[in-house]
C-alpha cells in the first residue's frame, strides 16, 4: 500500500520512511522498530495495531520525539509536512510538540499533573505556543472542555485532576492535546484504562473533536476490532515491522498476513465460543452428570462500606443471589464500581457480608473463621488481574507455586518439588522456568504461574477477578483455552469477574450482569446477548468493539 505522491491528491501530513529505532539495554542493543513506512493524510485516522512489545508505542514516540532516554533513531525519516523530525533540534521539536503534534497518553489517572487545576494545564498548552494568555486562555480551556464532552465545564475548569473520574480525565487530556489544533493527534491506547461503556463515548468524542479541528489521528491500540471500527486505514505491527496495511474493512474481511489472521481469530469480539453447554444427562470426565448441583451459593448478600465524610454507608453489594454450579463457569460482568469485585471478595470469604449467607458445597460458611475456614480456603482459590502485583517479586516461580502447599502443610520439600513440576506442566509452562522470578517472565507466563499456584491445593472453585483483562489478545486466548481445558480435566468451577462481555461470551455457561451493587439480569450468555432485556446490558454489549464486524 505505498502511495506515491499523487499530484491530484493532498500529500500526507505525516510520512514515515524506513524508520529504525534501537534501545540500548544491559544485554546490548535491541531493535524495537525495524524499517517502518507509514503515511497519514490530513484529517485521516490511521490505526497501528499490535501486541505489547510490537514497537507501536515506540513508533508513536518517534513522531513527537519523546523516546525514552535509552532509545535512539538509527535510520529513516519522519516527515511532518516539510520538516524532518528525526534531524530537527530540540527547540524546533518543542515548537512542534503540542502545536503541530498532540498526544493523548494511555493512562488518564497518571497523565495529569496532580497539583495544577485542569484549566491551568489546558491553558498552559495554549500559553507555551502563544495562542492565548490569562483569561483568554482560560475561556478557551472552558470551550475545549465543553467540546470534549465535559458537562459543567465552566465550574470544573478550576478543579484538580483527583476530582475527576478516569473518563473525565481522558476528556481533559484530549482537550489539552487538541488545544492548538495540531495537524496530527497521537492517541496511544487512549481508552484501554477505561470502562468499556466509557471507552466508546470517549472515542466518539475524540473522533468528533479531531474531525472538527481537522487533525489527523494516529490511533495506537492492541485491539484489532477497535482499530477496524475506528480507523480509515489499519497498519498491523509485529516485532517492529508493519506486516500489513490496508483500509480497515478490507483488512478484517481479507487478511493477507498470517499474523493478522491470528489476531482476528483471537479477538474476543470475533472469536468462536470455547465452551458448550453439555446436553443434559451426558456424563463427562470428573464432572457430575445431569443436573447442576450448586457448589457456591450466595443468598441475599449485602456489603456496606463506611465512606469518610458521608454519614450514609455505601452499599457496594445489595441483595445479591448467585450460584456457581459444579464444573461450570459463571461470569459476573459490570462496570467499575458495580460491585463485582466486592462480590468476588465475598465469595472468597475475604470479606464478611453484612447480611445474607454464603454456602459452599451445601454447608453454611458465612460465619466461619480461623481454623474452621481452612477447608474452605483450600477449596476456593483466587487469581487476580495483575499477575505482576500478585506474585511476590522475591519468590521464584517454584516458591510461589509451592507456597499454598507450605501454608497448608501439604507434603515435604521433596514431594512439593514434584507437585510444582506437575502443576507447571499442567499450565503448559516449561519446568526450566521454575527458578525464574516474576520480572523475568512475560505477562502471559506470570498469569499461568498465578493459575498454577491457585491449582496447587486441588481447589474446586477458582475465582478469577479480571484475570485476563491485562493480557494481549493472543495471550488472552491461550489463557482462556487453558482455563477451559483445566475445567474439562479437573471438573473445576470458575467464578469469572470481568468488564469484558466479549470474553464472557467465549467461556461462561452462565452470566450475571451487575449494576450499582445489584444483579440486574442473568441467564445463559448466548440467550442474554441475543436478547438483552436491560438497557444497561445492551450498553455493555454495544461497547464491545467490532460487533458490527462480527456480524458481517
Amino acid at each position, binding site marked *: 500500500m505505498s502511495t506515491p505522491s499523487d499530484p491530484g491528491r493532498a500529500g500526507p501530513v505525516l510520512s514515515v520512511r524506513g524508520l529504525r529505532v534501537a534501545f540500548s539495554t544491559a544485554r546490548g542493543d535491541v531493535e524495537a522498530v525495524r524499517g517502518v513506512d507509514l503515511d497519514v493524510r490530513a484529517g485521516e485516522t490511521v490505526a497501528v495495531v499490535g501486541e505489547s512489545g510490537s514497537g507501536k508505542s515506540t513508533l508513536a514516540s518517534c513522531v513527537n520525539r*519523546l523516546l525514552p532516554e535509552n532509545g535512539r533513531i538509527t535510520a529513516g525519516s519522519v516527515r511532518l509536512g516539510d520538516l524532518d523530525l528525526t534531524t530537527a533540534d530540540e527547540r524546533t521539536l518543542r515548537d512542534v510538540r503540542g502545536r503541530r503534534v*498532540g498526544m493523548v*497518553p494511555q493512562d488518564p489517572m497518571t*497523565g495529569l499533573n496532580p497539583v495544577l487545576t485542569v484549566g491551568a494545564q489546558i491553558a498552559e498548552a495554549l500559553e507555551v505556543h502563544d495562542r492565548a494568555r490569562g483569561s483568554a486562555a482560560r475561556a478557551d480551556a472552558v470551550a475545549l472542555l465543553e467540546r470534549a464532552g465535559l458537562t459543567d465545564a465552566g465550574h470544573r475548569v478550576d478543579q484538580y485532576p483527583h476530582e475527576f473520574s478516569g473518563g473525565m480525565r481522558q476528556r481533559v487530556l484530549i482537550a489539552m492535546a487538541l488545544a492548538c489544533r495540531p495537524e496530527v493527534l497521537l492517541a496511544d491506547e487512549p481508552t484501554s484504562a477505561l470502562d468499556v461503556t466509557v471507552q466508546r463515548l470517549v472515542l466518539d468524542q475524540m473522533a468528533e473533536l479531531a474531525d472538527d479541528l481537522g487533525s489527523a489521528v494516529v490511533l495506537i491500540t492492541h485491539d484489532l476490532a477497535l482499530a477496524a471500527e475506528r480507523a480509515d486505514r489499519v497498519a498491523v505491527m509485529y516485532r517492529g515491522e508493519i506486516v500489513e496495511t490496508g483500509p480497515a474493512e478490507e483488512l478484517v474481511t481479507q487478511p493477507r498476513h498470517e499474523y493478522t489472521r491470528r489476531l482476528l481469530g483471537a479477538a474476543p469480539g470475533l472469536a468462536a465460543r470455547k465452551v458448550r453447554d453439555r446436553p443434559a444427562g451426558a456424563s463427562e470426565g470428573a464432572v457430575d452428570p445431569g443436573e447442576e448441583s450448586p457448589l457456591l451459593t450466595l443468598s441475599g448478600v449485602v456489603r456496606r462500606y463506611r465512606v469518610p465524610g458521608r454519614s450514609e454507608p455505601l452499599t457496594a453489594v445489595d441483595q445479591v443471589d448467585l450460584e456457581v454450579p459444579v464444573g461450570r463457569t459463571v461470569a459476573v460482568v459490570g462496570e467499575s464500581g458495580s460491585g463485582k469485585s466486592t462480590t468476588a471478595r465475598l465469595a472468597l470469604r475475604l470479606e464478611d457480608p453484612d447480611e445474607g449467607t454464603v454456602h459452599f458445597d451445601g454447608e453454611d460458611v458465612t460465619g466461619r473463621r480461623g481454623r474452621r475456614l481452612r477447608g474452605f480456603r483450600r477449596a476456593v482459590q483466587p487469581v487476580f488481574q495483575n499477575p505482576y502485583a500478585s506474585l511476590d517479586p522475591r519468590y521464584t516461580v517454584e516458591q510461589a507455586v509451592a507456597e499454598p502447599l507450605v501454608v497448608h502443610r501439604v507434603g515435604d520439600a521433596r514431594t512439593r518439588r514434584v507437585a510444582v513440576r506437575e502443576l507447571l506442566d499442567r499450565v503448559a509452562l516449561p519446568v526450566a522456568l521454575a527458578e525464574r522470578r516474576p520480572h523475568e517472565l512475560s505477562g502471559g507466563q506470570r498469569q499461568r504461574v498465578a493459575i498454577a499456584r491457585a491449582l496447587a491445593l486441588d481447589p474446586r472453585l477458582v475465582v478469577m477477578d479480571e484475570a485476563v483483562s491485562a493480557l494481549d489478545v493472543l495471550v488472552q486466548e491461550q489463557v482462556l483455552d487453558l482455563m477451559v481445558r483445566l475445567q474439562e480435566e479437573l471438573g473445576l468451577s470458575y467464578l469469572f469477574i470481568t468488564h469484558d462481555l466479549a470474553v464472557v461470551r467465549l467461556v461462561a455457561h452462565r452470566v450475571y450482569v451487575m449494576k450499582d451493587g445489584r444483579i440486574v439480569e442473568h441467564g445463559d450468555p448466548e440467550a442474554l446477548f441475543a436478547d438483552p432485556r436491560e438497557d444497561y446490558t445492551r450498553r455493555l454489549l454495544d461497547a464491545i468493539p467490532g460487533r458490527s464486524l462480527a456480524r458481517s
Partner: protein
Amino acid sequence: MTRLRAALSRPLVRRLAEAVVTLVGVSLLTFVVLRVVPGDQITASYGIAAGELSPDQIRSLEAYYGIDRPWPVQYLGWLGGVLSGNLGLSTASGTSVAALTAQALPNTVELAVLAIVVGLLLGIPGGMLAASRPGRARDGATQLGSLLSLSVPSFLLATALATFLANQLGWYPNGEGYRTLLEDPWLNLQQMALPALVLGVSIASPVLQTTRTAILGVRSEDFVRTARAKGVPPRLLQVRHVLRNALIPVVTMTGLQFGFLLSGALVAEQIFAVPGIGRQVLLGLQQKEYAVVQSTVLVIAVMFVLVNLLTDLVYRLVDPRVRAR
C-alpha cells in the same frame, strides 16, 4: 478559606486529641526519669556537703523543694499548676519558668528559622543539581558533600569554624555577650550566623537527598511526559511540573527537622553562647530543678506538636489531593 477550614475540621480534632495524649506521655516520662536518676536538688546544691546534713535538715530541705510528697501528688500538683498557667519556679534564680522560657524560646525559634532557611537554600538547589545528571560527576560531588555534612559532627564543625574565624579574621561576635534581635539586630544576626550555618549544613543533607529522590521519581511520571508533549520548555517543566510535585515530600522532611531544631539545638547553643531553650533544660538538669526541666520539656513537646500541625497545613497548601480528604 472556608474550603480550607472544612477540609481541616475533622482531622484537626483527631490531631488535637493525639497531641494531648502525646503531651501527657512526654510529661510523665520526664517526671519519672528525673526521679529515677540518682541525686536530687539537695545533692545538686550542696554537693559533697549534702552528706553532712542531718536527717532533720534533709527533711526540711525536701519540704522546701517540695520533693517530700509522694510522686503522684507531686505530678498532679505540677500538672495542676501548668494547667492554670503556672509553670513553676526556678529556686536557684528565683525567677518563674514562664519568664525564663519567654526569654529563651524566641532565641531558639529565631535560630531554628534561620537554620531551616540555610538548610533549604543549600538542600533544594543541591538536590536539583544532583538530580539534573544522576550518576554523573555533578551528582557524585553533591552526594559526597551531603555525606560529609551528615558525618561531620556539628560540635567539630562549630568549633573549627569559630576558631578559624576568630584567629584568622578576628571575627567572633559570639564572644561579646548575647543580644536579642530586638536589642541589637545587627549584632544579633552576626551572632546567629555561625550557629545557623552549622545547623543548616546538617539539615541540608536530608533535604538534599529527599529533593533528589523526589525529583528523579517525579521526572519519570506520566504527567511530565504529557507536559513535554505539549511543548512546555525545560525551565517551566522543571519548576511547574517537576519541582512543584517533588516539594511535597520535602515539606514533610523540613517539618521534621524544624521540630528537632525547636527542641533546642543544645550543642550549637552551648558553643556559640546562645541562651536558648536547650540550655535552659541543661541548666535545669544540672541543678536538678525538677520544675524547670519538666515544664521546659513540656514546652518543647508543645512546639513539636505545633510544628507538626503547621507541616500538615503547608502540606494541604502544596497538595490539593490532601485538601479534599
